[in-house]
């Protein structure tokens, strides 16, 4: 049961990432692209967690945590750039 659920989860998350990628390429404005990139990273975290369950090792959570932190900092920096024209004033 668990293996089937994990496989279905992989498919659904992959579909979600494809939709995010579509919005990232298509996005009419820069803010759409930033949002798509942020969502893509969050989905990548979900994918890493799923992979950790499948591999049976808890070594993937450090990667997930680093990805979450990097995503947050990156989104903040891009938003600050759009808002102020500069990142560190």
């Amino acid at each position, binding site marked *: *049961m668990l293996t089937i659920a994990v496989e279905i989860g992989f498919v659904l998350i992959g579909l979600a990432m494809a939709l*995010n990628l579509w919005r990232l390429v298509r996005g009419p404005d820069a803010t759409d692209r930033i949002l798509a990139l942020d*969502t893509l990273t969050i989905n990548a975290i979900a994918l890493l967690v799923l992979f950790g369950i499948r591999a049976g090792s808890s070594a993937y959570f450090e990667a997930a945590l680093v990805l*979450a932190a990097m995503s947050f900092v990156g989104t903040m920096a891009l938003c600050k750039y759009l808002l102020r024209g500069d990142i560190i004033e």
Partner: protein
Amino acid sequence: MNVIIEFAVSVLILLGAVFALLGSIGLARLPDFFTRLHGPTKATTLGVGAMVLASAIYFTATQPGVSLHEIAVMVFLFITAPVTAHLLAKAALHRRGDRQPSPHPSPASGRGGNGDGRLFRSGNDCPLSLRERVGERDEVTQRQEEVK
């Protein structure tokens, strides 16, 4: 592993994946940026939360000791998602103000806000608001002179 635990983990994984997919469908299909912002920041965060919870339960059941460091990912995501959404909305409002006025009135000009949404326009595309602003300044200086 216990059947009940396996069932719970499976259900949480499927729930999380479905929520993540719903958030991404919202991101791809909704018409406006502010509606698109609504989808991922709620659904995807909840989806990842459910998936991380499933992982915590799984590793608590299979490995010795309680596995709690997955919860750190969840807490971090739950704290940062509203901040990210707030900044993105702010940036989008800022950028929309820079462009030409849109054919339909902006939400800022509806209820609340500052009336005509002057805060979000840069001024070079709407001379009326610029004139209004100059007029306001004149009134202010007049009032100051009266005070003197």
